[in-house]
């Protein structure tokens, strides 16, 4: 349960939605403040980090590395769905690709093939909802569902993310 508390405060969906709303506000104000896009980079990289942390909770249970806990699995899956609902457009302004600025692996294909990018993001949402529907139903279901989420991650990274430097 440690994963779901921050300094003793349990993170609920309400808190998460508030945080997302605040983050979205932050993006809006930063957009005209500077053009190194550091706020957008932090926001979009942060959302992927939130995804990874919660996938880690589910993946640990799927692999049997950590004990299955229905409540923790549900909270992690709910968080994935919450991330999938963050609107993406404000975090991906034109010119924030890896050819234009430092600190990102976002390839220009995100803008050149934006429909493909957004459809792959939508696929992540579909996979997140599937895991949300079954996360509390036992450890056995997690493996295949993780595979579906992982497939969505890879499908997008295949085209749109540059290798690490």
């Amino acid at each position, binding site marked *: 349960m440690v994963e779901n508390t921050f300094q003793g405060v349990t993170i609920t969906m309400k808190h998460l939605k508030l945080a997302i709303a605040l983050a979205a506000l932050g993006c809006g104000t930063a957009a005209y403040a500077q053009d190194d896009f550091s706020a957008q980079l932090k926001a979009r990289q942060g959302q992927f980090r939130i995804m*990874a942390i919660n*996938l*880690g909770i589910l993946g640990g249970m799927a692999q049997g590395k950590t004990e299955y806990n229905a409540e923790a699995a549900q909270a992690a899956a709910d968080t994935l769905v919450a991330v999938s609902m963050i609107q993406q457009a404000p975090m991906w302004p034109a010119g924030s690709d890896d050819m234009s600025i430092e600190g990102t692996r976002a390839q220009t294909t995100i803008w050149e093939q934006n429909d493909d990018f957004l459809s792959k993001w939508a696929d992540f949402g579909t996979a997140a909802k599937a895991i949300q529907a079954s996360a509390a139903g036992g450890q056995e279901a997690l493996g295949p569902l993780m595979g579906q989420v992982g497939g969505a*991650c*890879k499908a997008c*990274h*295949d085209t749109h993310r540059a290798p690490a430097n």
Partner: protein
Amino acid sequence: MWRGLVRTVVILGGLGAATGWVLTQATPLDDTALAGIDADPANGETVFTAAGCASCHAAPDAEGEAKLVLAGGQRFASDFGTFIAPNVSPHPEAGIGGWTLAEFASAVTRGVSPEGQHYYPAFPYAAYLHMTEQDVADLWAYWQTLPQDATPSEPHEVGFPFNIRRAVGVWKQLYMTDDWVMASAETDQIARGRYLVEALAHCGECHTPRDALGGLDRDAWLAGAPNPSGRGTIPSLTPDDLTWGSTEIAYYLETGFTPDFDSAGGHMVAVIANFTKLPASDREAVAAYLKALP
């Protein structure tokens, strides 16, 4: 005296050129090679998957079942030009349906075409040369079950001097060797991992740095390299750099998730799509091999 010296030089030069001509010849296997092997197409499918044939020879952006249509057309940029994967579907004209098993084996394990020409080493025959005869025969048997496609192959976009195919013969003399990089495999599992990594899955093609002539630097085996077709770096897999546990490596090959649940990208996505179809024991064997690297 001068005349004698000139004659000697001419003779030696002629001998050198003749030797070079012989050495750079593309020698196919004998017609009877691999004859009499009882081929198993089911194992051929495993070889096909592990060797990643479809990852390069399927049409660009093919998904799902369409990946089994080996129509070609994917482009591979390199320092030497852009290679375009040919149609290798079993179509008798557009593809390789008219080949014999010996011709197929010559292509895969020697990089020699039925016309007696060298293929460019973008085709990883320097890895496939380690393939067992049984696996080659099984692979060919499986090949016959794949769909035909009539898309014509496109010529490679390779300029002078790299368009001199004969020069590939020199490259082969320099870089093709029967020797494994990991000379001795301590266990059967490591030996299987070595076969997968060094031969079928040809991991070294991207994870090992190349010298100026495009040959793999076997002294820096799997030590990471610049991305051959684009920006960024292909990571090192040596134990000093890749500190993941064996189960974590196997899980990555199955799901694409790193230990901190980042996910694979780029061409590795295609590699994982193949590894996820292989038996768990094969993924564990790759992990065991990587852990046994110096």
